[in-house]
């Protein structure tokens, strides 16, 4: 596999329903007998196959709860598939949530290093990036201030500034561009276009056709955990609208 390649073959992710979730010893003992056979599973995602080539940009489209985030988390390696296989090659910059792992008590400076370490970078590597990150975030004056005093826009700016500097092969963006003012949003989009032309694979979740069209020629439509469409973005939106109008099937609960 080449760097930046994503290969998903018949993948499924199941969550145990709350009833089955064991949290105390007593429940565990009781459930040993009660739920021995019927474990109820909720498939957030099932029978999904997708091949994404290095440098390709794909938008993931679907209603709330369609499995978009589950799919992104699986690509990011946070979730393991319950069945099928998910192969991802290369460094992933997950902008699933900007500033995940920030510690509010620490300064912006400390958080840059902490966040870098969370993404697997050494202190030395982060020192080389530090000035660029601060410059991109435009937070030089506030960098030694505890980030609990930051506004939510500043918070997101710092998060994006770190995430854009991790030399990714795969960029995962979960509608984070909605934060920050318009000028900063434009800056982020320009940065993403840079990545695109550098051959970085790009996965984007969006509910807005315009934003998605601007960045991705291909789209995959998810509907109740199944892949309903995979192809050019214009047609995908028609399919998405069509599905939205159609009857909504109940949640897929299967006895396993």
């Amino acid at each position, binding site marked *: 596999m080449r*760097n930046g390649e994503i290969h998903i073959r018949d993948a499924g992710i199941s969550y145990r329903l709350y009833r089955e*979730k064991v949290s105390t*010893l007593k429940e565990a003992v009781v459930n040993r007998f009660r739920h021995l056979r019927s474990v109820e599973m909720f498939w957030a995602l099932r029978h999904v196959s997708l091949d994404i080539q290095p440098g390709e940009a794909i938008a993931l489209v679907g209603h709330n709860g369609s499995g978009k985030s589950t799919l992104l988390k699986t690509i990011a390696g946070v*979730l*393991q598939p319950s069945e099928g296989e998910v192969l991802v090659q290369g460094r992933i910059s997950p902008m699933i949530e900007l500033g995940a792992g920030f510690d509010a*008590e*620490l300064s912006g400076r400390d958080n840059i290093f902490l966040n870098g370490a969370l993404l697997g970078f050494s*202190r030395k590597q982060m020192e080389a990036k530090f000035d660029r990150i601060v410059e991109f975030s435009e937070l030089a004056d506030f960098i030694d201030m505890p980030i609990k005093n930051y506004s939510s826009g500043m918070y997101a700016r710092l998060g994006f500034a770190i995430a854009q500097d991790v030399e990714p092969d795969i960029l995962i963006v979960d509608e984070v561009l909605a934060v920050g003012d318009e000028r900063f949003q434009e800056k982020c989009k320009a940065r993403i276009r840079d990545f695109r032309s550098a051959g970085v694979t790009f996965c984007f979740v969006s509910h807005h056709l315009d934003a998605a069209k601007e960045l991705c020629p291909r789209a995959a439509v998810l509907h109740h955990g199944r892949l309903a469409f995979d192809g050019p973005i214009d047609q995908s939106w028609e399919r998405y609208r069509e599905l939205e109008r159609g009857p909504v099937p109940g949640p897929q609960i299967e006895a396993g």
Partner: protein
Amino acid sequence: MTELAERAAPAAALPPGTRSPIGDLLRYRQLVAMLVVRELKVRYKRSVFGLLWTMLNPLLLMVVYTIVFATIMRSPQKNFAIFLLSGLLPWLFFSTALLQGLTSILTNQELIRKVRLPQAVFPLSVVGSNLVNFSLSLLPLLLLMAVLGQPFTPALLFLPVGMLILTVFTSGVTLLFSTFTVFFRDVRHLTEVLLQMLLYLSPVLYDLQMLGDRGEWWFRAFRLFLRLNPISYLLPLIRDPVYYGRLPSLTTVGVASLESVVMAAVAFAVFHRLAPRHIHYL
């Protein structure tokens, strides 16, 4: 983009998943160090004495125990404060790290849901920050030794080895209990109770030699328990050099090393197996 091409991904850019679990963890050792620093920074933020509290704590403890045992209860041991602290400080390291560490997966769940990283870094960083505290708390102990005229012997040079063995053991237990806590929240309360009991069932406030010999069955059962208790072999690693001014016996060091390595290996294997399932139970 030439600018991007120049910043070619470094060797560390391999995805974590393609490495062995141990290599994965090693790659994140700087994260562990950073989490340790963060923990210490946040803990002592806005406190005037900061890290000094780590040393003041055992000092105050010492005063209390010395008054209680040496003056009120008239303990026969010479320099009883040192005897007590040389057992109490390693015990506090073990029990505090365990109690703090076993909830560390739960308290970091926001991160675990969003970033792919070896989850063992969280319990291990708690052990790390407690090791810093433990090391610092040894300074007032050494000070007290000087004040009370307790002899400093070359055996004290064994302390780093003893602390290492104790840390390996503590890391193992903490890893194991932190993953159990994810599945069964009772583990935390259970551990609290067990540690309370274990404090008295381990040679912390007393010593095997102080027990003497008695024929009753319950006393023999108690002695047998002490013999089987892994803690019994760990505490002398600190107390022997500090209080008795001698190296711990070869048997003690051997058993302590073996049980620590086995504990850590088993714990790491179990943790590695269960970690992917944590996210469903958080």
